């Protein structure tokens, strides 16, 4: 692969960061509109109850203008997870609920002339609950004593399999079984949820949403309000982090409804507690894994039983379960494997996308189990993984798209070397003192590149070269903070041979962006949208060259183009923009193309993390002393952005392993309703992350690139847990490994 890139891989600075530092970037709550109403959702205090509301006292509060409840809103059911009309889901959400299904469910909207008035209105609202027995946790759900939706709490179940695991277990030398749990994780984007909408002069509903999929927001609003798709304009605005949390519309339907009803701009915001309780979370899981293998370390059979807590609405109950299952078949070569996934309704916050989408959960337990298998035969855990890891070009055993240039072995081999794994493993115990135990751990993981093989995965791009030498790329992307815009700019810059500074890529806006089938989710943006930008850039550059030959009577081979200028030996340099001028005046045309791009595949990405921990035997606190994260990402488009993903992903993954959990009390209320109780990793607890990139090129990806943002949150956590288990010679499988759990493990030693 030609690696003489001008822009690809380079540490180019993003366009938006200075304005963010200066406080000039406008996030949702920074936008004010003339005549705007402020809104707040009254969220249910009860986990499972029919609600009746008396609006009177709230309406009496000075400045409160409207109170809306279930009685006032259209009754069209929808599923906030459904990003296109064809996605198979259960539609069980209302704009405002009659029956609350979790503490935090939307039951009323209060509007007023000021925030203060609305807050008073919320306090004054009289709500009475006709309570049903709450279903908290998977075990309770399985009893089916109290039913949340339909006739059973089982929301979804699916078996995926290859070979014949049951009989293959009989041929194995050893079988190792583990069972563990993973927590509900709060995305913890530092910006809380919010939405603003207004009616424009053509009676279009305009929605300003910090979101991930403008076309999904449009679809859900159209459905909920029965309003024409073509009259709903959703604009993605600057977002203060998402991580999947702002993927599903939470406030958009009710906000759009309020603008339609009142004719006024409406802004609804949530505070931290409301966002924790009333938005979405990473699904918690309970996973049982049984692995059969031989003396030589070869895995022969595996059985995985995964139970998923889907929360109060259906949302992603099917999608996340399937996502977990599919990943189990794409990391190791296992001829006989069965995955049995079930997800349940519970009266807790509904599940949603959360960085890694099921991969962090399944690998959390499976990578502990892999370590235990290696331990059983006294084999080094890196070696055990290498014996079983997939190879480039392998097929997916259950018929999903091929794995592509799967470089997990490189991750493990090069990572072990860079980490000095073998030596450290030998000597780590020498560091132990009576107070501290040291351990090292490794974990591997995989994730995807979009929806190909499961759902429509295509996008449309429109590119023009404008007279002032600017390239304008219209594509439905959403920068969630990762640098997606810059990624697209660098890909286009490489093709155009023009500085990224000359390239504008406006973000998702359903009135500007051509249709995109799946949005900024599923790790598809670099691979699919980036591929589309590369393709369309090539098409328009060809068009530019052809037009040049017509205008200047030369042949294609004579043309030189570079740094935004085009010329031949005999003709002076003109800018691309000047050429666009000439094309218009002389050829009655313009330099513009529209290209539809279908994803060419869905290869896997891989990662491995190597970690050293220091465990305080007295307090149960864990320090991550060292971490090396290795990523097989094909090709970095921008190294700084990639490292930023790896470091941030590690922060989330270590948090899930050690401290993060949305905890529910038996009565369905949330214990961890703010950052004083919900602990994300802060600066002193965060290790310096070393990253190593395997850049061997993915044939279908733009300049060989594939995804990285989500896979970064998969392997650090399991490596930390394996290191703790190494340090304490224990087998912690329940997450997070809190000090209490650690102390229990120390005492059980």
């Amino acid at each position: 692969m030609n690696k003489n890139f001008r822009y690809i891989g380079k540490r180019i600075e993003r366009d938006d960061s200075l304005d963010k530092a200066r406080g000039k970037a406008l996030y949702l709550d920074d936008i004010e509109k003339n005549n705007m109403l402020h809104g707040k959702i009254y969220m249910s205090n009860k986990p499972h109850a029919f609600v009746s509301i008396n609006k009177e006292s709230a309406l009496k509060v000075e400045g409160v203008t409207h109170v809306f409840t279930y009685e006032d809103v259209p009754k069209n059911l929808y599923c906030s997870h459904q990003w296109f009309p064809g996605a198979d889901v259960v539609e069980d959400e209302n704009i405002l609920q009659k029956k609350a299904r979790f503490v935090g469910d939307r039951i009323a909207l209060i509007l007023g002339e000021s925030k203060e008035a609305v807050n008073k209105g919320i306090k004054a609202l009289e709500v009475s609950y006709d309570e049903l027995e709450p279903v908290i946790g998977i075990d309770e759900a399985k009893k089916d004593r109290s039913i949340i939706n339909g006739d059973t709490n089982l929301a979804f179940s699916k078996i995926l399999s290859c070979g014949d695991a049951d009989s293959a277990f009989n041929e194995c030398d050893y079988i190792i079984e583990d069972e563990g749990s993973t927590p509900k994780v709060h995305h913890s984007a530092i910006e809380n949820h919010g939405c603003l909408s207004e009616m424009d002069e053509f009676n279009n509903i305009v929605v300003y949403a910090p979101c991930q999929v403008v076309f999904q927001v449009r679809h859900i609003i159209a459905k909920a309000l029965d309003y024409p798709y073509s009259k709903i304009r959703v604009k993605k605005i600057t977002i203060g982090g998402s991580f999947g949390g702002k993927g599903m519309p939470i406030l958009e339907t009710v906000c759009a409804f309020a603008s339609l009803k009142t004719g006024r701009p409406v802004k609804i915001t949530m505070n931290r507690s409301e966002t924790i309780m009333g938005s979405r979370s990473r699904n918690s899981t309970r996973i049982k894994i049984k692995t059969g293998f031989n003396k030589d370390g070869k895995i022969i059979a595996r059985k995985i039983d995964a139970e998923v807590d889907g929360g109060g609405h259906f949302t992603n109950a099917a999608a996340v379960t399937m996502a977990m299952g599919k990943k189990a078949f794409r990391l190791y070569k296992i001829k006989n494997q069965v995955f049995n996934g079930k997800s349940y309704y519970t009266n807790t916050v509904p599940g949603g996308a959360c960085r890694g989408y099921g991969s962090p959960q399944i690998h959390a337990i499976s990578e502990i189990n892999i370590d235990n298998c290696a331990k059983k035969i006294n084999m080094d855990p890196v070696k055990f993984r290498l014996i079983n890891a997939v190879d480039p070009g392998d097929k997916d055993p259950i018929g999903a798209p091929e794995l592509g240039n799967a470089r997990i072995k490189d991750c493990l081999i090069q990572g072990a070397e860079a980490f000095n794994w073998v030596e450290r493993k030998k000597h780590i115990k020498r560091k132990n003192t009576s107070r501290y135990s040291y351990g090292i751990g490794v974990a591997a993981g995989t994730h995807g590149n979009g929806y190909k093989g499961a759902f429509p995965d295509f996008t449309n791009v429109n590119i023009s070269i404008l007279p002032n030498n600017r390239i304008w790329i219209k594509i439905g992307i959403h920068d969630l903070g990762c640098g997606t815009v810059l990624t697209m700019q660098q890909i286009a810059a490489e093709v155009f041979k023009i500085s990224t500074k000359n390239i504008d890529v406006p973000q998702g806006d359903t009135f500007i962006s051509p249709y995109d089938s799946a949005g900024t989710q599923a790790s598809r943006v670099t691979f699919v949208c980036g591929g589309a930008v590369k393709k369309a850039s090539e098409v328009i550059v060809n068009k530019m060259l052809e037009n040049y030959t017509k205008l200047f009577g030369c042949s294609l081979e004579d043309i030189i183009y570079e740094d935004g200028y085009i010329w031949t030996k005999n003709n002076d340099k003109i800018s691309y923009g000047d050429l666009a001028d000439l094309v218009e005046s002389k050829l009655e045309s313009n330099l513009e193309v529209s290209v539809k791009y279908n994803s060419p595949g869905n290869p896997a990405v891989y990662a491995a993390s190597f970690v050293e921990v220091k465990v305080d035997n007295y307090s149960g606190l864990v320090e991550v002393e060292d971490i090396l994260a290795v990523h097989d990402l094909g090709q970095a488009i921008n190294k700084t952005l990639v490292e930023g993903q790896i470091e941030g992903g590690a922060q989330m993954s270590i948090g899930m392993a050690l401290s993060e959990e949305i905890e529910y009390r038996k009565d369905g209320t949330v214990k961890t309703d703010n950052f004083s109780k919900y602990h994300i990793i802060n600066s002193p607890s965060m290790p310096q992350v070393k990253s190593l990139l395997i850049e061997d090129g993915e044939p279908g990806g733009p300049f060989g690139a594939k995804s990285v943002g989500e896979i970064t949150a998969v392997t650090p956590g399991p490596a930390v847990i394996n290191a703790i288990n190494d340090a304490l010679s224990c087998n912690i499988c329940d997450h997070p490994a809190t000090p209490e759990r650690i102390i229990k493990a120390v005492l059980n030693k």
Partner: protein
Amino acid sequence: MEIKATINGDEIVKNINPNKRLVDFLRDDMNLKSVKEGCSEGECGACTVLLDKKAVTSCTLFAGQIDGCEITTVEGLEKTGELELIMKSFSKNGAIQCGFCTPGMIMSAKALFYKNSNPSKDEIIKAIEGNLCRCTGYNKIVKSIEEVRDGIEHE
């Protein structure tokens, strides 16, 4: 109540509701939108501003408490030219992703430098322990602040 305070270098005399939270006063009354709100209880640091050159969380203070004091936000640093080096360092090093934590981070770093012009890496890490960032894993933020300490200038 009437308060007198210096906000970003300008003296103001204003009649305010002393029980208004400082974050609301700065954002809504003074239009200083760099001051972000992430948790409303002093835990995330997004609302960090300087009160007499010390970092405070403006969501846990009342506007009445700034009477006679000096308040600085990034808008103020920009006016005096003090933002330049630090914002460029953050930008160059990739310390800004979604950017929601950034103004608060910068104010905490600034407060540190007022106290100690040559802080160690550990002191830098400690100075931002109350500023949560979900995007960056802090590594690049710490590096940016170290480069400011070392006077490294970026284009």
